[in-house]
């Protein structure tokens, strides 16, 4: 009987652990293993490769640039997403007619697949017929369709901001919703009290709303960090990391390598993992530090 009780947690929690182990942890181990193997293009294991895959990866001409760009990409996208979402959450938390419908519109990028959103943006940025270029033409920002000035995705300097824009575009809905949820938990009397104290609107937001939003903000930002770091369809569909590797992030490099060198690609995945874990740890640390100060 007592032994049965000891097994009780297993019955409740066990299936979840099994599923995670099977689907998430196993591939991780498999991947780490692969990163030390020599694997042919067709997937045949040709024996151990020691650290050669890693050496080759670190030796890639563009590796350093790509890693730096990946980190900047994550920080830029997440920071912009959070800032814009804070504003939008505030806006959509106001009362106005048809608020519900307006909120539904916000759902669209969340409900649509990221890949399709990226493809439609590429379509809208087409230098010959893209609607964004038509608008820019009407506004006098470009002289003609089809030229180099209409080709925003052709040059890293203009392509990168667009990639960030699309990444923010697809991340904002979830973040805004999380923050709206956070706002909904702030009791009305807190505001009443602040008003009685004569706090201005900005002060109220800064010293009451924001601290109370912190948990929701942390969750939303954390999920964004992990998603964005691995976000792949946007860059893949819009620029494929080109020209050269100048808009590629580490995940894109991993995919390109997957076509020619599976072991090196696995090594890239492992490095990628390390980066996500470090970024997440830093993030958690920073957000906790915030809490202590506040």
């Amino acid at each position, binding site marked *: 009987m007592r032994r049965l009780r000891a097994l009780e947690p297993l019955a409740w929690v066990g299936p979840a652990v099994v599923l995670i182990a099977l689907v998430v942890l196993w591939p991780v181990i498999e991947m780490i293993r*692969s990163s030390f193997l020599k*694997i042919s*293009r*067709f*997937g*045949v*294991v040709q024996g151990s490769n020691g650290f050669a895959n890693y050496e080759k990866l670190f030796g890639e*001409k563009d590796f350093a640039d790509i890693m730096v760009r990946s980190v900047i990409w994550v920080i830029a996208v997440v920071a912009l997403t959070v800032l814009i979402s804070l504003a939008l959450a505030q806006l959509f938390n106001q009362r106005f007619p048809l608020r519900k419908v307006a909120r539904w519109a916000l759902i669209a990028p969340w409900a649509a697949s990221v*890949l399709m959103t990226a*493809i439609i943006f590429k379509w809208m940025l*087409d*230098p*010959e017929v893209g609607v964004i270029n038509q608008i820019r033409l009407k506004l006098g920002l470009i002289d*003609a*369709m*089809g*030229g*180099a000035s*209409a*080709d925003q*995705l*052709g*040059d890293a300097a203009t*392509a990168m901001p667009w990639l960030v824009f699309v990444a923010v575009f697809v991340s904002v809905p979830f973040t805004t919703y999380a923050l709206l949820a956070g706002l909904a938990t702030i009791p009305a009397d807190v505001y009443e009290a602040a008003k009685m104290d004569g706090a201005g609107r900005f002060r109220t937001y800064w010293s009451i709303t924001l601290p109370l939003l912190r948990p929701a903000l942390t969750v939303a930002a954390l999920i964004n960090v992990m998603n964005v770091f691995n976000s792949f*369809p946007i860059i*893949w*569909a819009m*620029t*494929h*990391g*080109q*020209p*050269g*590797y100048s808009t590629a992030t580490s995940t894109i490099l991993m*995919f*390109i390598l*997957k*076509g*020619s*060198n*599976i072991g090196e690609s696995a090594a890239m995945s492992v490095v990628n993992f390390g980066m996500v874990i470090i970024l997440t740890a830093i993030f958690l640390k920073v957000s906790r530090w915030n809490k202590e100060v506040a």
Partner: protein
Amino acid sequence: MLVRLIPQGGVRQLVRTSDPPDEKAVSPVNMKLVGGAALGLAAMLVLSSCGSGGSGGSGGDDKASGGGQVTLKMVAADYGDGPGKPNSGETFWKGVTDEFTKANPNIKVDVQVINWNDIDKQVATMVQNGQVPDILQTGDYSGFVKDQLLYKVDEVLSPNVSGDMLQKFAEFGKVDGTAYGIPFVSSARALFYNKDLFEKAGIAEPPKTWDELKADAEKLKKAGVTQPFGLPLGQEEAQGESFLWMLGNGGGYKDASGKWTINSPQNVETFTYMKGLVDAGLTTPNPGTKDRKTVWEDFGAGKVGMVNGGPMSIPIFDAAGLKNYGVAPIPGKTGPLDTTLGVMDWIMAFNKNGHAAEIKKFFDFFYTGDAAQKISDTYKLLPVTNGGIKKLEGDEKLKPFLDALPNASFYPFQDPKWAEVNPAIKQTIGGAVKDDPAKVLGELQKTAESAG
């Protein structure tokens, strides 16, 4: 090879890059257990799909059909627009095999058509599971030679058929002097030009040399054409477009002795010339990011003056509503190319089921009958036999391709390093018309020399 070397763009590329890690030892117990569990759960959830079991499973009962009756199992790539479409591979092969069985009542051919994205993965799975087909038609044969899975060509093809093959093509079917791969269909490239735009710009004839090309491009630009020359050097097709230009200056990826020559003086000169075109705004803007599909779409819409294309682009341009265009040999530095980029697909026979005699009958039937001709007509692919070329000679738009075909040049796809060099070219060679050509080509040369 047609598809593998003419890679698809964007998301499609993904599939190709996820080659199957082929684990040699798949424990059958494991599979049964998991498979059984999956089956139970699947039934529970009323999942009606049957997974891959259906496609792979049928291979097993080949030998069961005794009594002199032989069933050949064939796997073929789909040149059509997919299942259900009027030009689907299933429809095509059904026509061929029905006729063959009518002529040879005791041989049946079961054809499984698989799309290009998946065929490599699927075949690898079949081979690992021991469900090897008798005949395979796909983009590469060389991977199977090492494992001694294939019949030699002379075991399954009559001398009169193999003698009719284009010599240069058949050469590439050999590994260490022995032929294993049989050329199946081919394709080539030539210059397409928009006659209306040429007229508008006051150009009488398509250019033959680079100087003429540049002069014509300038005229087109003056006439308001946004992309006088369509230049796709993005990841989809950069290796093909680049090769065509290299050929125009006597260059290439390798020299005659088989040494990599990506950064040879000729190639650097070639890309310097191309960079001049790009800088003058005479090409597609930022070629290093442009896919062939997009440039062809623009040519079809009358926004591009000239572009390199293949027979397969004819129906595309026609469908886009472009009527008045011509096809000419590709201009080289001092004169039009007498060669072109040739690509070909292969057919091969596996020796596991021991059906050499029946396979031979089928192959001979295919090449000597009108089936080979039919596949060219249906899919705008080029033949690989001298006889086949003769039959198509009347077609004016195909003529530039057919003329160049016997002397075609090929990618160094037999070099195992090509598998690593090719993706690198696709990703970075566009930089050679933007930055320093010598530097970009030098990097690629380094990759080629160190890869492996």
